[in-house]
């Protein structure tokens, strides 16, 4: 663990992510103002001591909105990464180890990969309505094939190892072989991939919010804050600046972290991505 932290990218990325994540996690504690409370008298105020990031067109506190919006963004990033990794790992392991289903599964994955996540999300939201669930599902679905391919590739090489054959001859069941002998080899690569998926999910969610196809506007998210701020950009640039800066920082932080982890945990991947 100490060795991993010695990598400058890991350390820098981790610092950025923690700085961004802590306020979002403790949003109610760090901002006492209700992010949805409107105050017509306080409209379009530049940053000040009482409103650190200023106020927006409805007089809502931008700092509070950004902090609460961060919760949404990070929640989406984390859930998308977690769900796609878990599902992808199961499908990938099955596909790599059980040769019969491999061809079929991989063709389905090829099909999924052809769907752009943004379009799928817009379609799902227009059919089923905007909710956190539909957004998460829409972003997760096209990410799964990436995980499946990675896991399957590793499983295909590891299953040829003599120690796996030794386990077969020792009468170990298929599930136990996958769990004990094969899947531990995928962990390092999956941690790295999870960071990339998380970062891109945060971005996709923001894009959806910006396009008005994301989570409903009552819940602040960086995407819909930026979308609303767009119209008043010239008179109140701070409304646009702060959520955008946060978005850039968190994605940068996660990506730097991911790069560092990739270099320390899984040198094999360094050239592929």
């Amino acid at each position, binding site marked *: 663990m100490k060795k991993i932290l010695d990598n400058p990218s890991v350390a820098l990325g981790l610092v950025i992510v923690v700085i961004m994540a802590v306020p979002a996690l403790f949003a109610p504690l760090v901002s006492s103002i209700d992010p949805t409370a409107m105050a017509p008298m306080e409209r379009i105020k530049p940053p000040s001591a009482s409103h650190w990031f200023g106020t927006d067109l409805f007089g809502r506190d931008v700092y509070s909105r950004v902090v609460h919006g961060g919760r949404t963004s990070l929640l989406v990033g984390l859930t998308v990464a977690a769900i796609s990794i878990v599902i992808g790992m199961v499908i990938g392991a099955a596909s790599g180890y059980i040769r019969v289903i491999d061809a079929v599964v991989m063709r389905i994955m090829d099909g999924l990969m052809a769907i752009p996540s943004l379009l799928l999300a817009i379609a799902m939201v227009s059919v089923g309505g905007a909710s956190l669930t539909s957004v998460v599902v829409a972003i997760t679905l096209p990410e799964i094939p990436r995980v499946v391919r990675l896991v399957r590739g590793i499983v295909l090489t590891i299953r040829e*190892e*003599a*120690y796996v*054959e*030794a*386990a077969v*001859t020792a009468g*170990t069941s298929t599930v136990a072989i996958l769990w*004990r*002998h094969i899947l531990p080899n995928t962990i390092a690569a999956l941690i790295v991939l999870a960071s990339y998926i998380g970062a891109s999910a945060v971005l996709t969610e923001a894009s959806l919010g910006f396009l008005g196809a994301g989570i409903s506007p009552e819940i602040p998210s960086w995407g819909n804050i930026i979308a609303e701020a767009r119209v008043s950009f010239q008179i109140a640039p701070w409304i646009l600046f702060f959520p955008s800066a946060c978005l850039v920082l968190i994605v940068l932080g996660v990506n730097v972290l991911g790069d560092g982890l990739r270099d320390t945990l899984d040198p094999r991947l360094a050239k592929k991505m």
Partner: protein
Amino acid sequence: MNLSEKTRPASGAPVLDIRNLTVRLPKGADREHAVEGVSLSIAAREILCLVGESGSGKSITSFAVMGLLSKELVPVGGEILFQREDLLRASPERLRQLRGSRMSMIFQEPMTALNPVMTAGRQIEEVLTTHTDMSRDQRTRRVLEVIRAVSLPDPELIRRLYPHQLSGGQRQRVMIAAALALEPKLLIADEPTTALDVTTQAQILRILKEIQGSHDTAILFITHDIGVVAEIADRVVVMQSGRVVEQGDAGRVLDAPEHPYTKMLISSVPSLTPGTRAEAPVKPVALSVEGLSKIYRGTSFFGSKREVRAIDDVGFTVRGGRVLGVVGESGSGKTSVARCVMRLIDCDGGRIRLDGVDLAAASKRRLHDARKDVQMVFQDPYRSLNPRRTVGQSIIEGPMNFGVPKREAWERARRLMTLVSLDPDALSRYPHQFSGGQRQRICIARALAMEPRLLVADEIVSALDVTVQAQVLELLNGIREKFDLAILFITHDLRVAAKVCDEVAVMHRGRIVEMGSTSEIFASPKHEYTRSLLAAVPGRTWSAEAGLGAGGA
């Protein structure tokens, strides 16, 4: 003794003179220096064999000569004089000029040493394009000349083939041809025959001897195989842990070794004469295989079907307490036989009977129960233990699959560790903390933990150094006696087979061409192929026992 017949090397200034070479290892390695105070010299027309086990520093010495040491390895002392020029102080440009033109190297693995997307001819020509300004026609002529010099048939054709279209031996000859293209003064051969079959190895060794006779080249030949040394060396340098422990004329070192390490190295070499074994009472048959066949089917790029008969109507029996050796060259199907018996692959016909159960046709359930009775030890000790699990976990996995309580399985693992001469407390350690030989012992313990009736040993000593090899074979012999175990012993090395097997089956192209008791087959082989295999064993005219006998006198 064929050593005395060898042409005496021409005297004169040595081509290569290494004096007191010391190369430092990076911090945290098991010793401070990779090689320390190594001095040796080679004259023109001389073959010097550099012998030692893995980690002895023999390859590092040769890499230092070629200027190919990796960055962490720093030569900190001594000099390497190549035709009186100190290579350690030469500029990188100068070294590049020398490499390929005046000194060249051939490697162990001919498949990876050749570029797969260049034809054999182009690879040889590359040396000429880099170092000379020959015209295209001259280059082509020279390429054909050197291809002919390494006894490859049809040079015009070989020149246009890609590496994957050549066999291992042919590829190694192309490597030699490329190395010889500019008539280098020094040729370094780093285990050039280790990855090859015995018959191919014999051809390559013959070619190297011919080169020595027809060119003025000095050859530094690195090997771990004393048999190969006996076959081609003029002089021998023995290395251990980075130091030269003994050097001298090949005949003297082999027949009258002075240093205890050399003596041990030579006495570990199994001889081709089968050991005599007391006639044991005939035990019941443990494994009987009848009409076994396996066909690999592949579809080629244009859709035509390809069929390879890996095993063709193979049958044999192994009795309890006996060892049946299956010998053959690569591609003979011997490993496929082992894998079929283990049901790691399904066979396409035949019966594999173990205790009345036909493994070939057993249902999943029956197979699961039968797995207990047949266990395997694999070739590569570095890959056959899960690096993320302690050796204890690896050993108890099998018994626990069959319902042995954890405490009991652990007790059994401790007993087995003692049996294979390892510390029982080492069970909680991870595989990387053990050497290759120790890992192979652990694998044997893992197999025995299942209390099997049949042990399949697939090339279990071929990745090990010769002294370790001897110990593992010794252990296997003890186990066979103690547990009345039937052993199916797969090997390519006839010397190893002679040492451990009661009976031998010789496989060639998927068929058993000859089978019988070890002493019979080695004394009077009937099949043509068996004879050629035996004739190809390196150093067959020299035997370790005779050598040591003379040394002890």
